[in-house]
């Protein structure tokens, strides 16, 4: 019974000592502050010419409207090429004293794009994002979406420079030529078929050599070899 009382006393002293040590420390620790909200605005011309450089600016400010300097802003655009697509990173820039990050890039295909600026946030500032539409127009593309041979006047409208001179001609040959990009596999497949068939023919001749030897050995053991020598 006495032992139990002693143990109880030790426990009370320990708890008191712990409380006396930790409580002032906990009281002195500041509460984890929530990151300050930020606002990101993006400015880009609404339209641009194909291949021409476009200047895009993003401005990052705090909730109080104060510019945030030295923050990293990532510029991306949604991009699709053939059967692949995704956000393509154009640039990563730091904001200056006015909170502005600037980049310059040229889009090499026509269409409707969305230029996006992203601030991923820090311990102090919350992330923010902004986007703006961008139309890139031109009468031509800088690359062709489909491989193949295009012959103006045959499977494409004849033209001089950008001036179309008429529609593609009609008839069976232009029709076949127009089907070329989709059909380009067939001539290759046909050529391969011919070559590999000839290979098979050659392999058949090797089997014929082996078969001839077996037949001869069955008819006249060793006679062929004795007459003809080793070859």
């Amino acid at each position, binding site marked *: 019974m006495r032992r139990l009382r002693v143990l109880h006393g030790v426990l009370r002293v320990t708890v008191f000592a712990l409380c006396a040590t930790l409580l002032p420390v906990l009281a002195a620790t500041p509460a984890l502050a929530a990151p300050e909200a930020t606002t990101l605005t993006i400015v880009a011309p609404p339209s641009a010419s194909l291949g021409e450089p476009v200047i895009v600016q993003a401005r990052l400010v705090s909730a109080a409207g104060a510019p945030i300097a030295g923050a990293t802003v990532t510029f991306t655009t949604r991009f699709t090429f053939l059967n692949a697509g995704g956000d393509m990173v154009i640039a990563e820039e730091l904001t200056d004293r006015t909170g502005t990050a600037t980049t310059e890039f040229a889009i090499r295909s026509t269409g409707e794009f969305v230029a996006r600026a992203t601030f991923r946030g820090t311990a102090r500032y919350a992330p923010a994002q902004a986007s703006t539409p961008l139309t890139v127009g031109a009468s031509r593309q800088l690359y062709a979406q489909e491989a193949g041979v295009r012959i103006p006047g045959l499977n494409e409208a004849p033209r001089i420079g950008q001036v179309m001179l008429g529609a593609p001609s009609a008839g069976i040959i232009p029709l076949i030529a127009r089907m070329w990009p989709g059909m380009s596999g067939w001539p290759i497949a046909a050529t391969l078929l011919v070559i590999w068939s000839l290979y098979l023919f050659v392999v058949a001749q090797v089997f014929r050599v082996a078969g001839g*030897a077996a037949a001869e050995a069955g008819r006249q053991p060793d006679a062929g070899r004795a007459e003809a020598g080793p070859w």
Partner: protein
Amino acid sequence: MAEAPGAGDDDVDALDTLRLGRAEAAADAHEILAVPPEWRARLERRGLAPLAGTGWRYYAWIGALLAVLGWGIFAYTRQLDEGLIVTGMRDRISWGLYIASFVFFIGISHAGTLLSAILRVTRARWQLSVTRMAEFITVVALMVGALFPFIDMGRPDRILNILEYGRWQSPLMWDILAITTYLTGSTLYLYLPLIPDFALARDRLGPTAPRWKRAFFRAAAVGWNGSAAQRRALERAMTVMMLVIIPVAVSVHTVVSWIFAMTLRVAFNTSIFGAFFVAGAIYSGIAAIVLLMAVLRKLLRLEEYITRTQFLYLGYMMAAFSLIMTYFNVSEYAVHGYKMEAGVPFHFEQLMVGPFAALFWFYIFGGLGAPAIIMLVRRTRTIAGVVCAAVFVLLAMWIERYLIVVAGLRVPLEPYAPRDYFPSWVELSILAGAFALFALLISVFAKLFPVISIWEVVEHRGPEPGARAENEGSRRGRPGVAGRPAR
């Protein structure tokens, strides 16, 4: 190899013409040349000797090659582990040593099958003693060269994507199809004339040869006994193959060139790349044959069968192709230089006076000029001279491929500062490993297959007058020439 420089060329040519004429006449009449039995026995002995036994020097050589190959494999594991960042390649110059070496190896692979087929079709009998070596080169170079695109991939496991997502319109797809077709055809073309020689090895090699080797020869000979029916079948097969393999070989290097020519790059923007690559491939291929011929002739003591005639004729072919290559280069640079489109001035500057100038001018003077001059000058028109020219050609043609790939990609697409490329230790080690693999496969093949097509030499070529005298003269250190003892 010792001989009187330049002595008796006309006599050699006259004797060759006489003898070749006899062989061709016999071949035209479907006759088999009557050859002295002792000469034939000596040829068989000499041709089959490497198959019968192996000395310690061979194992030491194989050990050294395996060590280099092992180092190359170690370097590749570093690349697999850490990615292409361990190479010198980056986004601006994304092809380097690997793709240059790929083009080089595919190029020398043309040596064998294409040359052998063309010479067979034209019944040039002088080449019968070297066709086998040429065909070895083709198969081995293709096997090694085809590894480089895989090595060049940061994620080689994605190679299966080409089957899943491959497009007929892509030159890369054409390349895979062409190389697969060519490798299969070349292997068949190597095997067909080997059948009678396998039979010879089966019948002649005694119990000194290991049991597995005798079993291999028995199986590979497919029961060949030289009957008329078998001969007809073999002749049919060889005729088909020699006709098919020529366009296939031409198509392979054309397609390899299109990988570059169909890419939107200033330096690749030319329509003669196909022909240029095919000519370059044959050019470097001939040089590779000459070099291998010289090495095997010396090591396997084949001086009686591989004489000055083969070296001279291949040297003449090399000289002719140096002129063809010169023509293509003049055409290429004159047309581009005349128009000077955007990017061309930069390309010309970097090649001719910039960072690639030393390599470029070595290619022009050492690779195109020197071989032609060596063959033109009577004093240097010797076996040693031809071998020297072949070394120049091989070095220059590797450099040419490096210039096409690296200098071509260095031309900026946008107004940014050009980036430089220098291969890292990983790339250099892998390249050394590839060359070791090439030498290793040739060494192993030389122990499995007769390096001379014995039956064709016996049936269609026969002994070369004076070849033995030359051989013996060479061994005693006395000068001599094929066709006539030294004066």
